């Protein structure tokens, strides 16, 4: 191991060195020749070997954006750095260096193999991003804590691990410990982990492993629950009825109402409030169910359109393929004929025929495309009509239900007003009992203030209801518009592309023909 002897001088990893390495690994054969002739772009290089170069610092690697394998073993590297641009790296060898800390691997999300053997690392850390890691070699380092290794458990794909030559591997039962906590491992320290050993290990560390697994399972379940909750909310949002199940709307109505709490204490109001909430809740639930059902219907409609669309396109593609296949067969024959013809006049005539055939092909393809386009436009129109109907009826339903909300609010307001007036009178005549609290009593001393509060509350409530309604209706409308627009745009693009391709193909054919006509050109 020369670097330990210190015989060689450390060198800088400059552009020249990298370029040379790339150049060296380009093969000497035909492919290499072509590559050199075209020039090698560093961002296309897949592998680079920079081993045994006495490199001190990783540098000048930012151009290698598509690099998948990097060999930096047997150098004098002390810090892992400068790898931020190598997002496609799957294979990194940093063995036989002087690294003391694991760091700088954050952007290497595709990394599968990481070799850090024969360094001076004492802690496994900073590796959270390496989700795809399957091989991890960190033998002959300074790892001491067995528990530290457990952080590798989160790499689900890890099956090859090498920890030999570390202080921790000299502990008793080290291999059993690893085998118990890494049941997916097949290789440990370059040896196959036998099933018997795994079994024995799992018995040995049963309790600890089970505890850890329970914890992980709970975490997993919590995550899953969160996921499914989010998915459900997304579904509700897609159906434009989010937070309409339950009494969310009702609560939001009374959330910013300063006088509501005070009013609640007035006899009779609490009861009114309760019935109001119940009625609102029922209506909301109804609206919610309708929303989900409508969402399902719309989805089914769109899916049916998409399948119909695909079928149409495939049918026409088949027709076009037939036309094309026929043409190509004839074209091939003609080409063969051309090669045999020597008489320029005859050739001219033939080429004329050929041109005609190309034109004919172009015509038939174009007319097919025209037909397809009009058919597609028809069905898009149909979809637009159907979806508009659905959205319209949904909007109407929504509006109806919101009108009912308003009615409820009105009734509530009226009732509360009546009660308030009665209470006002009572307060005025001082015939209220002792059960009325000071706040309320104070509120009801001023008639204007009470009426104002009630009116503001009422207005607020109506505003909230209207807001929610507008939100729902506008969003569904917007969804419809964007859907149809998206489909139309896609169709337009498809049409353009198809026509462009057809034209391009015609040009291609004509070019070929021209080569025959004027072979000198």
């Amino acid at each position: 191991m020369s670097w330990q002897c210190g015989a060689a001088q450390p060198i800088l990893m400059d552009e020249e060195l990298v370029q040379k390495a790339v150049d060296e690994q380009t093969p000497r054969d035909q492919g290499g020749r072509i590559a050199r002739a075209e020039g090698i772009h560093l961002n296309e290089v897949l592998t680079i070997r920079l081993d045994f170069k006495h490199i001190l610092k990783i540098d000048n690697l930012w151009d290698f954006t598509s690099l998948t394998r990097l060999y930096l073993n047997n150098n004098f590297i002390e810090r892992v750095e400068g790898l931020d641009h190598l997002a496609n790296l799957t294979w990194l060898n940093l063995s036989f260096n002087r690294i003391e800390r694991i760091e700088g691997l954050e952007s290497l999300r595709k990394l599968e193999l990481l070799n850090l053997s024969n360094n001076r690392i004492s802690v496994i850390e900073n590796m959270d991003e390496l989700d795809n890691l399957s091989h991890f070699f960190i033998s002959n380092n300074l790892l001491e804590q067995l528990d530290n290794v457990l952080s590798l458990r989160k790499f689900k794909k890890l099956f090859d691990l090498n920890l030999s030559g570390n202080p921790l591997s000299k502990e008793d039962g080290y291999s059993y410990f690893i085998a118990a906590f890494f049941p997916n491992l097949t290789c440990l320290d370059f040896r196959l982990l036998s099933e018997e050993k795994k079994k024995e290990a799992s018995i040995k560390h049963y309790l600890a492993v089970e505890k850890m697994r329970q914890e992980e399972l709970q975490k997993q379940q919590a995550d899953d629950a969160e996921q499914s909750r989010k998915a459900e909310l997304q579904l509700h949002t897609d159906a434009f009825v989010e937070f309409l199940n339950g009494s969310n709307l009702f609560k939001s109505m009374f959330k910013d109402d300063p006088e509501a709490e005070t009013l609640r204490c007035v006899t009779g109001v609490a009861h009114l409030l309760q019935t109001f909430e119940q009625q609102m809740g029922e209506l909301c639930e109804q609206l919610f169910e309708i929303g989900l059902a409508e969402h399902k219907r719309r989805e089914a409609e769109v899916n049916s359109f998409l399948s119909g669309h695909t079928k149409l396109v495939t049918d026409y593609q088949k027709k076009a393929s037939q036309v094309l296949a026929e043409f190509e067969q004839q074209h091939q024959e003609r080409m063969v004929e051309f090669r045999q013809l020597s008489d320029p006049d005859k050739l001219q005539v033939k080429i004329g025929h050929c041109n005609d055939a190309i034109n004919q092909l172009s015509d038939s393809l174009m007319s097919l495309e025209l037909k397809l386009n009009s058919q597609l436009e028809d069905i898009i129109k149909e979809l637009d009509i159907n979806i508009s109907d659905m959205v319209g009826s949904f909007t109407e339903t929504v509006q109806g239900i919101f009108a009912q909300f308003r009615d409820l609010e009105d009734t509530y307001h009226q009732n509360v007003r009546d009660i308030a007036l009665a209470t006002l009178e009572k307060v005025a005549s001082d015939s209220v009992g002792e059960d009325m609290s000071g706040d309320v009593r104070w509120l009801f001393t001023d008639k204007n203030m009470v009426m104002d509060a009630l009116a503001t509350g009422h207005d607020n409530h109506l505003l909230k209801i209207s807001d929610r309604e507008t939100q729902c209706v506008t969003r569904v409308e917007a969804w419809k518009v964007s859907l149809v627009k998206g489909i139309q745009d896609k169709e337009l693009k498809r049409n353009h592309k198809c026509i462009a391709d057809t034209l391009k193909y015609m040009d291609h054919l004509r070019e070929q023909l021209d080569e025959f006509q004027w072979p000198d050109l």
Partner: protein
Amino acid sequence: METVLESEEDEGRELEKTFRNTQVSVPRQLLLSLNMADSSCPESHRINSAAQIRLLTFANNFQRQFSHMYPDRRPLLLFPTNECGVQKFVSTTLRATATVQPELFTWEGCAEFAASFLSLEPLDSPIDLPSYLFSPASVLKTQRATCFEFATLLCSLLLGVNYDAYCVSGYADKEMCLLDQSLQDCPLLDTPVQSVISEESQENKYKEKPQRSLKSHFMTQEEQKKKPSAEAALLENLKPDEGEQRPVDRLRGLRLHCWVLVLSGSRSVQENFFIDPLTGISYGTAAAGFLGIESVWNNHNYYVNMQDCRSGCSDMVYDLEDVNMWEPLLFGATSKKQLIHEALNKNLYKMTQDVQEELEELEEQAFEMPRSWVSDVSITKKDLETRWPGGHKLTRYRKAELERFAPYLRPNGLITRLVSYKDLDCTEVLLVKEWYQHRTDHLEEREVNKVDNATTERFKRGRRFDLLFHRYESLTTDGAHEMKFSSIRVDNLVQRLVSPGEMTETFERRADSLYYRRVNFGRHVQFSEEHVNSEPATRLLQVVERFHRNSSKPANEDVAERVFLLAQRRIEVTYHLDADTFIPSHRSFIKPREATEQKKAEDFTQDMVSSFMVGLSDTPVKTLILYEMLVSLMKDEEMVVHQIEESLKEVRDIVSCREEEEGDIQLFFSPWTTTGAARARSKRQEMERQAAEEQSWLHENEKDILAPLLMRLDITDPLSADDAKELHQECLSEFKQKLVEDANLIQERYQNETQELQKKQQWYHQNQLDMTEQQEDEYQTYCSDRTLQIRVAMRRLKMHQEEAPLKYQALDERLREDPRLAPHLLS
């Protein structure tokens, strides 16, 4: 009805006496002609019991009254004579027989067995009732039966497995009575029409709107006018050939037949039906072939039909309890229906206290049918396997002949052969279809089409090459072959079509999504010597490969078709269609020439590729990438060529393998068949015999220690006392000498080794100073080797010295025990 019964009661006792002596009423000639030794029959066959005699009295009475009341009706079959010449009532000839063979648990199995196991003996006269009816037991022995005996056997079997079955005596058409199936189509011929399961596709409203069709109404009308005439012409063609018309049967409606009626109610039979015992085929009760019913009977009672049969059996009602339609012979006897009912109510009866009384009451009611006189009907497994008399049966159908064989009867495993003909006279063969069983080459079916001369073979799964289907004209490599394979092959090959100049292979579910490969060959004749024996060399002209879409790749990079134009040194690649275009991308490569002796290898340039790529890719693809594409394509080409060679080789292998197998047909012998079991037993016996022989041979040839001495001394048996002593001494002394010689030999070896070692040591001492390290080493190893050898020799010598006296003693003892010497050496 009542009158009949009353008189029956009156006259019963008188007639009883006369019937006691009727055993001898059958002419002797019949008995002789039946060739039945009386003694072989059980007693019940030869003698009527008291109950049976009483029954016969009833029957006789019944018959007399019946003929008196209905003089225009034909006589009934009531008590024909059995094989021993004794009159027996037909119901007692039925014996409900339960078998242990699972094949006979269903009516289909029973009917098929009865139809195939027996061969038909026509009635003496087609319109007269037979005077005899043999028991099922004896019918099974002879395997020959009249239709009445057929029905009796089948009915016995069906009653045994709890069907509500009856024998029916009646009239049927000529074809049915004489088992003439030449007007019917062979049931094996009509191939089941595979019902095409229409895809349950929901009608999608987003579909292509039909183009407005510009069609003349006038034209359509004209066309419709033409249609009827064309249809009429078609119908004309469909009319059956004249040759198929048969002359009208003069005896129609008079021909007697006997078949089996199965009534609904038991064994989950839903509807009444007939079984024709001669063919084993079931018919509805309204089938046209059955022209009338005279009487039906089972093992409990006998019923005479009182319904009008002028329009055949179609309007018949089978409610046997109804005395207006069916006149029972034993009035009040239990019927099957009652039995079923009783079985259901049995549990209830058990509950009640006075069970005994009630049962007695029931028994008092009427005269019950006595037990069957027929001895046990036994059907062995062998009977089931061999089936047909002689294990072989030929049936003629319309334009077809069906031959069936018992398993293992034919050495090539043939089970069924169906020959279908072009014409009604069965002269011109159209198709020969053969079914096989138990063949080691897994052949199940072979169809030889004589018209286009194609042979189609079908195989069971699990044979070599996973071949399932093979169609060929001639079993040679040159001809056309169609082969289908089971889907478990490693290369996922499903079908291969080989014809001269072309081979098409179809694959399924391959990982590389290849599904089709077509190869075109150009043949060129080889005249050179070394190719004479090998297969004619073929040159690949073109290989076309097609792939399924792999949706993980963009369409522009997903190859749909590869064409290797080997002759033109070109490779053409067509890519899959994108979702929204009509024109696929394609590339065409020209392979650069390889290096030859004269020239350097051609360089790859951009000109060698002509490509058309869809989409708006402005940047041209780099030459390096194109080159890499070409290199991988060329590699693939090599592989494809190799695979094609393998395929061709496999075709040759299959053909030669099939030839070999056909040349030496072997059968599996399953130990669960009687033939197989018999074979296994004989094989084991043979092995045992061989083992015994070998044992005895070994025993005889056991080493005789005295043999060489006896020969040398020329002493013959028996030994005299002197001879024996001499022999004994001689033997011992010789052995002693042998031991001494052995000892000497070991001693000599020991001395030699020691001497050599000493010599070497001396040489070493002399040359010790001027010796290289290597020589020293050699010497050391030599010395250790020698000392080891010496030590071994010493050990052997010692052992020999210890063992020698023991060995000597052992020989002495053995000699003293020898039977030839022992008597003389006792002293």
